[in-house]
């Protein structure tokens, strides 16, 4: 069946069409290639245990890249995810000793909602460019988190054991708990994008905002809700990340902001909106995680790793654009 359709593709056009319509195919090929390279470089390391470690590391990045995917579908971007995620992780860690885990989580989610609401109101109602709006919000969030940190300097701060388990432990030493949490979230996002009216409106607004408005979509409502969802997902990534690293810092997730955008772009979501999806983004996040692990395994110093990481992102994005775009 599959080989038959491939032959048909070849007959009608070329590989290019297959790649354009199923962008996940070349991505998976790249992923397999990377795993093979890793297997050659470090023989014997690639096994189920290794896969679990990779998944665990990829989950927070995949969630943050999900924020970028959803906002990029509408032609936006969310640069505040790093600040919101770090703030959420830190807020929980600073409140858990005195108030308990429930209060900490609730406070963090509430703060994230407020940040997302602010971004959403700016983007949706005041029509501020999402890049600049989310940047401004990230300044506010980081500044307030810093001020909070100074206020809390006397009290004890520690990542709660529950989050540590969730972020870094694995069920039967194999499947990470964070991945078990991620699967329903990913299913929800995939389903919402494909099957619900809200998901279609995200595509519609990004593809042609005027047409979306004329056909009755209240784009401001869609956008306000979207940026709140994005902030809540960022907070979730922050919980997992603080659990994974056992660190609570107000700049914890900052270094993941640029990779999250890169993962969404490599995954085939257009930064101009209207095209893409979460499936490719997940593979993109996994690819970036493995590249990063591969560069570490090869023993390169930090400087060389950064250079190669950037160069690979450009190369993959360029190859991808070349393959999937019609000339």
């Amino acid at each position: 069946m599959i080989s038959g359709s491939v032959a048909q593709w070849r007959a009608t056009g070329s590989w290019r069409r297959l790649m354009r319509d199923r962008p996940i195919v070349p991505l998976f090929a790249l992923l397999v290639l990377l795993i093979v390279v890793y297997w050659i470089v470090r023989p014997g390391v690639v096994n189920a245990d290794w896969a679990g470690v990779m998944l665990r590391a990829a989950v927070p990045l995949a969630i943050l890249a999900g924020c970028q995917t959803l906002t990029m579908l509408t032609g936006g971007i969310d640069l505040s995810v790093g600040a919101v995620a770090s703030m959420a992780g830190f807020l929980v860690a600073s409140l858990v000793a005195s108030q308990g885990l429930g209060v900490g989580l609730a406070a963090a989610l509430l703060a994230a909602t407020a940040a997302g609401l602010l971004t959403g109101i700016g983007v949706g109602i005041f029509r501020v460019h999402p890049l600049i709006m989310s940047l401004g919000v990230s300044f506010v969030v980081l500044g307030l988190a810093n001020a909070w940190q100074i206020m809390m300097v006397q009290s004890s701060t520690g990542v709660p054991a529950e989050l540590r388990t969730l972020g870094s432990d694995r069920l039967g030493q194999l499947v990470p708990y964070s991945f078990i949490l991620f699967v329903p979230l990913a299913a929800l996002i995939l389903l919402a994008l494909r099957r619900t009216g809200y998901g279609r409106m995200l595509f519609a607004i990004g593809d042609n905002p005027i047409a979306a408005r004329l056909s009755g979509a209240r784009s401001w409502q869609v956008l306000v809700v979207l940026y709140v969802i994005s902030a809540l997902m960022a907070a979730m990534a922050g919980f997992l990340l603080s659990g994974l690293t056992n660190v609570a810092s107000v700049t914890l997730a900052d270094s993941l902001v640029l990779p999250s955008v890169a993962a969404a772009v490599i995954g085939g979501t257009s930064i101009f909106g209207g095209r893409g999806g979460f499936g490719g983004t997940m593979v993109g996040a996994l690819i970036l995680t493995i590249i990063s692990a591969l560069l570490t395994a090869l023993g390169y110093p930090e400087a060389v790793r950064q250079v190669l990481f950037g160069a690979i992102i450009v190369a993959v994005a360029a190859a991808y654009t070349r393959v999937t775009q019609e000339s």
Partner: protein
Amino acid sequence: MTATASTFDGARTGPGDMLLTWLRRNGWNLGLLALLAALLAYTRLINDNYGPTGIQSLANAVLPLALAAVAQAICVIAGGIDLSIGSMMALTSVFAAANMKGQSEEFAIAIVLATLAFGLLLGAINGTLIVVTRVPDIVVTLAMAFVWGGSALLVLRTPEGGAAQWLKSLVLGPLGIEWVPKAAVVLLVVVAVIWLPLKRSRLGLAMYAIGSNELAAFRSGISVGRTKILAYTFTGLFAALAGLSLTANTGIGNPVPGPYTLMSVAAVVLGGVSLAGGRGGVIGPVLAVVILQLIQIDMAFLSLDPNLALVSQGVILIGVVMFGSLIQWRRSRR
């Protein structure tokens, strides 16, 4: 674009209308200037000792960020955005500092020129990659930020190196009267010598054209790709100037990029340059940088938590941009 438009207006209308047109066109910059004057007066009010020394340190703190804002403004006007400015600054700064250390004053002249050429090269690579790969600007420059930042770490692993005495004295201290900081003069001279001729040239016009409507520019015979590459090349040049000013200010090179990339985007938007491209200039962003810096200084004088300065910068950014889009919205309704 603006230059042509104003000549036409002037030909058709009287001097009063010309003044009105000029006011409307420069309204944003005049507003920023008024805000800056008010802030300076307020600074003087809360701190009687604020005088020449304060202005000196303000100018020195502003110089790198202002040059970064000019760099960002150029590629934003051409319809792009460069998220690698901070990394390019770090790379050019360590390049200059590592090569100047222990060398003669005369040799440093060659190093400064080489650094500027290096900046041109970095910008040209950014622009060429964007044009050739057809990957969105934001993605390419984001990835190149890693490449340039990593390269900076390859040149120097820790903040060190040196700077020639003449380079340091070029930006430190007053020029003649104590109220005129050298750093401010350097900024004005650099902008006047590079940006003004560029803006009035065919290339400058082409940059505004591709920023405002790429297809229309292409159909009127502008080579879009070449113009874009050149715009990024000038961005690289100004990033190198900003990197050099960092080395001159501190006397060393720091391989870790400062917060300059995102601050430059903020300053460009506050300065009235549309992120959609084709609008604005470099005066507004420079004024915005001075205002942001002065607010930080005022908050220190009021002995407020320095983190609140970051919050206030974010609030100002959001507030001003919302205000700007409200004005635009009302105009489009009229």
